[in-house]
């Protein structure tokens, strides 16, 4: 049976056999870096194409269908165009911060890749405070966005960046609470422990109503955190031209664009890990034969399937809901999501203490 675990162990064995341990470790680092960069590039191409296709079908259109079979190479062509374009820097911009900002945003995405379990025993860094690490690092992206808005020397950029700051800071709370409900149920911050706890059923099924509420809150909060419609005030095209990346062009713009999609992938991967059991196959009670068939599907396929399902859900939101106003946005967070998530946390604590979950 195909498994990524077998590949990694054989590569590691081979490296340690051929080289001394320090060398082997260094080479492993290089391999991991190359793999994550290529994952980023492929994800960027695939997700942008997927977004355009989903958007088109929801709006009763066809979407890109000219470049390659079914428009498959449209995003490749777009990327080539962006690479060849001149990267303009505005005259009065703060050059250093302006150039740094896209890389800060990208870097946050790369850091967040570390604790994600892509398949069984296929994880870059199984850190014991995984969930804490994710929630703390993901909030760093606001620095990159503020940097971009400030350095552009453009009032639209600054407005967009400020809105984005307010939005990310407030929605992080309810995202954190939603994550905490699963931590309460599991009793561990380590992602591999959280996945292991879902061996006999995913938390969204095992955790009754609180887990379901937490999942809804999580999806809403991360949609806001990744600055996507209906919470795309930071880059509201119709009012702020493009928000914080108004002044960016060429490859710097592409990095922002890529970072947005990488962030979507990462929050969906974390959502899939917390609520849908990561790479755990779907097991139903005592149906032995059914469970065996489910075990036959590789764990990486399970993980990717769940993640892409969540990504599709977020895209579905984007192309259905109208954009919120700034005051509505903050009302939604502070008057609705936060009280509900606090109450939900209390509920889940009671359930966990009394052992009412399966």
């Amino acid at each position, binding site marked *: 049976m195909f498994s990524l675990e077998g590949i990694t162990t054989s590569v590691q064995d081979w490296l340690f056999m051929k080289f001394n341990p320090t060398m082997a470790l260094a080479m492993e680092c290089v391999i991991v870096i190359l793999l994550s960069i290529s994952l980023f590039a492929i994800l960027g191409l695939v997700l942008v194409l997927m977004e355009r296709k*989903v958007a088109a*079908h*929801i709006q*009763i*259109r*066809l979407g890109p269908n000219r470049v390659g079979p079914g428009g498959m190479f449209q995003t490749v062509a777009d990327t080539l165009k962006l690479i060849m374009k001149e990267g303009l820097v505005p005259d009065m911009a703060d050059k250093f911060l302006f150039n740094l900002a896209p890389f800060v945003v990208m870097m946050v995405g790369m850091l967040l890749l570390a604790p994600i379990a892509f398949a069984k025993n296929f994880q870059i860094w199984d850190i014991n405070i995984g969930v804490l690490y994710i929630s703390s690092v993901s909030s760093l992206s606001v620095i990159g966005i503020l940097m971009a808005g400030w350095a552009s020397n453009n009032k639209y950029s600054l407005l967009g960046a400020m809105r984005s700051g307010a939005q990310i800071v407030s929605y992080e709370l309810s995202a954190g609470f939603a994550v905490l409900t699963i931590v309460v149920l599991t009793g561990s911050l380590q992602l591999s422990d959280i996945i292991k706890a879902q061996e006999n059923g995913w938390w969204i099924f095992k955790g009754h109503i609180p887990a379901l509420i937490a999942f809804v809150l999580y999806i809403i909060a991360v949609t806001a955190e990744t600055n996507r419609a209906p919470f795309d005030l930071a880059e509201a095209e119709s009012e702020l031209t493009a928000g914080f990346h108004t002044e960016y062009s060429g490859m710097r713009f592409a990095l922002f664009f890529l970072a947005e999609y990488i962030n979507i992938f990462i929050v969906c991967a974390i959502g899939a890990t917390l609520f849908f059991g990561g790479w755990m196959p779907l097991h139903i009670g005592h149906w032995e034969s059914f469970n065996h068939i489910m075990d036959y599907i590789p764990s990486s396929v399970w993980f990717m399937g769940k993640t892409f399902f969540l990504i599709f859900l977020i895209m*579905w939101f984007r*192309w*259905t*809901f109208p954009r919120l106003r700034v005051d509505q946005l903050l009302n939604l967070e502070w008057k609705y999501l936060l009280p509900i998530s606090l109450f939900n946390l209390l509920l889940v604590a009671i359930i966990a203490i009394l052992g009412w979950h399966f």
Partner: protein
Amino acid sequence: MFLKEYLSDVAKGVSSLLKGMRKTGYYFTHPKEIITEQYPDNRATLLMSERFKGEVVMPHDANNEHACTGCTACELACPNGTIKVVTKFEVSPEGKKKKAIDALVYRLELCTMCNLCIVACPSDAIKMAPNFEHSVFDRTKLTKILNKPGSKIREGIE
């Protein structure tokens, strides 16, 4: 009381969002609904809507007869001088003189497709056609004479 209102607010919001998602989800799962016309590819089968206003034409029947009496109502109705009616006098076999059109000159490059000439025509001699591929290399080709050469007015139209 407050809590009840609050919860009903939340429920109402969620249900209305779900309603919207059901609609878009329906469109996503039903590719039959797609309305995109892949224009240059489907030129042979392209169906324009009935009321599309592409250009003014004068329908002729099988005997090369039209319904235009040369009353110049369309010329008068046209806001920007697109139509020019050139009239002549035809002598009928009984020796009576009758007004008829020599040429109905239509200048497509001036036309705004406002439909006023069609509304003004008392005998429904002109109508809007749904063709839209009007680009030519020579501007003079846009000045068209709508009545076909040798055409006559249909019997019984005054």
